[in-house]
């Protein structure tokens, strides 16, 4: 667990981070979102003491981080940065094995751990182990960056705009992979990004920052339903907000049982989002969809009316 209480950071007269408090429970994914220069990266780097905070307390697993030796602290926190920070003179395997070697694992342990991680991130050891960072694509390099951060199996993972420099398609793919990885590994993650969609997609807890302060924090759905001010609303995409909210809700949580009428032609898996359902309705000119399970067996149905009603309910508006 990571807990920041009344933390500030001043560089000379300038206040980069101003009295922020936030809590990331064990195994949760927390995203810090904001425009550049809002203090999100500074906040992240205070957690592994790359920057020392000026005021307040940062507590890690019940102990203030000032009590840790900074080097030992960093070795138990995975760290991923935007431009990967891979060592260009080391091959992929050696880059990934860095922290285990620093922790003096045996050579065979390091080797098998590296192989395990490369497998986990879809980089076959035989093909990539001996490559150097400059021989990798952006996406591959960042996978190596993530593998390196996970190498010593840290409980905590700090990610500083890890996908910021990637093209949209690769970025989305890596986001999906990270989501899957997180579902398996349950790390405590603090993730810095300026991309709200990325944050909405990945985070359990969203923290919006502006000029060194926290403007609003809460679950993605909570933020979408009631943004605290116009700034948060514009970050959340203004008019697109409804669709973004629909993207976070699964079809099977809102379907109704099959009605007496003929089932609709269009079929949608229950695991899809309401946003995808809306899109399908627009495409097929239909206001009704048949919801199916993973074996394509109909299990319920979803109507446009229902989606709109749910949205009203979620937003706390009274029913007509």
């Amino acid at each position, binding site marked *: 667990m990571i807990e920041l209480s009344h933390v500030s950071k001043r560089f000379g007269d300038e206040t980069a981070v101003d009295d922020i408090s936030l809590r990331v429970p064990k195994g949760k994914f927390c995203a810090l979102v904001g425009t550049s220069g809002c203090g999100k990266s500074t906040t992240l780097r205070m957690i592994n003491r*790359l920057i020392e905070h000026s005021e307040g307390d940062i507590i890690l697993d019940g102990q203030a981080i000032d009590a840790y030796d900074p*080097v030992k602290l960093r070795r138990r926190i995975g760290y991923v940065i935007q431009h990967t920070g891979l060592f260009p*003179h080391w091959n992929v395997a050696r880059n990934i094995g860095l922290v285990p070697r*620093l922790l003096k694992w045996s050579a065979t342990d390091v080797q098998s751990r590296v192989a395990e991680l490369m497998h986990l991130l879809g980089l076959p050891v035989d093909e990539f182990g001996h490559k150097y960072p400059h021989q990798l694509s952006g996406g591959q390099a960042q996978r190596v960056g993530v593998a390196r951060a996970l190498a010593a199996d840290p409980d905590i993972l700090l990610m500083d705009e890890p996908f910021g420099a990637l093209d949209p398609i690769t970025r989305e793919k890596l986001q999906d992979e990270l989501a899957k990885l997180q579902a398996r590994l349950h790390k405590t993650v603090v993730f810095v990004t300026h991309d709200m969609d990325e944050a909405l997609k990945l985070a359990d807890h969203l923290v919006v920052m502006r000029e060194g302060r926290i403007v609003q924090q809460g679950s993605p759905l909570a933020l979408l339903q009631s943004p605290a001010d116009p700034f948060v609303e514009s970050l959340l995409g203004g008019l697109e907000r409804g669709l973004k909210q629909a993207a976070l809700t699964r079809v099977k949580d809102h379907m109704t049982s099959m009605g007496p009428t003929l089932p609709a032609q269009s079929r949608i898996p229950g695991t899809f989002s309401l946003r995808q359902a809306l899109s399908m309705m627009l495409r097929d000119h239909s206001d009704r969809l048949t919801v199916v399970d993973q074996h394509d067996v109909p299990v319920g149905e979803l109507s446009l009316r229902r989606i709109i009603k749910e949205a009203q309910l979620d937003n706390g508006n009274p029913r007509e």
Partner: protein
Amino acid sequence: MSLMDALPTPRLRWEGWHPNVVLVSLSLIMLAAFWLLDVVSMAPNRIVLGTGHGALEAFGWPGALLATLLLSFIGILACQPTHRHYRALFAAVIVIMALMPVGLMASSYLLIDPEMPQARLGMGAAYWVVLFVLLLCLVELRLRLNLTRIWPTLWLCGVALVWWLCAAFGLETLALVQEFKARDQQFLSAVAQHIKLVGIAVSVSIILGLALAMLMRRYARLQKGAFAVLNFLQTIPSLALFGLLLAPLAWLAANVPFLAQLGVSGIGTTPALIALIGYSLLPIVRNTYTALEQVSFDTLEAAKGMGMRAGQRFWQVRLPLALPVLLEGVRITTVQAIGLTAVAALIGAGGLGTFIFQGLGQAAMDMVLLGALPILMLALVVDAGLGALAEALRPGGTR
């Protein structure tokens, strides 16, 4: 696709015909030099200025024809520069270089009267031009073939071996060989002394330079002052520096017996080394400092964030990444020191410069060459060797 692309244009006929202009021109320069300049010169003895001889006199009809064919071959192949042709060109250049001493043997046979034991053969302007232009061809071919430095260097060593063998067996009439034979022991010890001076000066500068660069990184204020002093040192002409050192060192040697015992004196090795080290420090310090500072902040920050200690970051990340640029500094310094050491002969430090200054004094150009050519070769070998090392150490092993 626009309509214009589909229309035939007059230019179309010339597409696909992109001669390598550099090599074609170089080939023409060599042909012109070969036919217009003196190929060899012949002198009845050491002091008399030689008389020049053109291609026909030097090689005879068959030899001149063969040489012309070989030199034209380069230009012709360069008209269609495919990868295969470049490889052939590379081979041709090496072969021509290796054949050059054989040509000298032919001239010696044709021109020198066996009744005249003092007669000597000198390489004419055409020889030097062709040799120089062939080296330029190699530089061009190295780039075209994307070779690392080491391969041309190894081949050139092979060529040097052929020259050496020819000189040792059958080129007794060549003036250079005669100069060498007259003082072979002296020559070898001069080479040794030259290398020794350069070696000591460069190693001491590396150690001092690394230490100084480290101190500069720690104490920012030192940086400006130190660079100012080193830049100033660099601007003093070498002869002047040797002269300036003469008086204080002579005084020290006379008044401090301990230093005198160590070999300190106004002239000789000590002032030479001090001056050489003074000159060598700037490129070493500058390159070391830049090399260490240019390592990407992201990489170092990642190293810190991963939990590497300061020492680990320096030895495992900063230094290895700085090494290629650092070695570049060592290379520049060494090549510079090899040249400067020649001047050190003037204050009695020995080395190959001795022959240059003696030769100048005696108006014996071949003796000057005996000193100058090995200096040139030393510089080339060091340049290529250290350049290859720096290339090999570039991040990621491969280029």
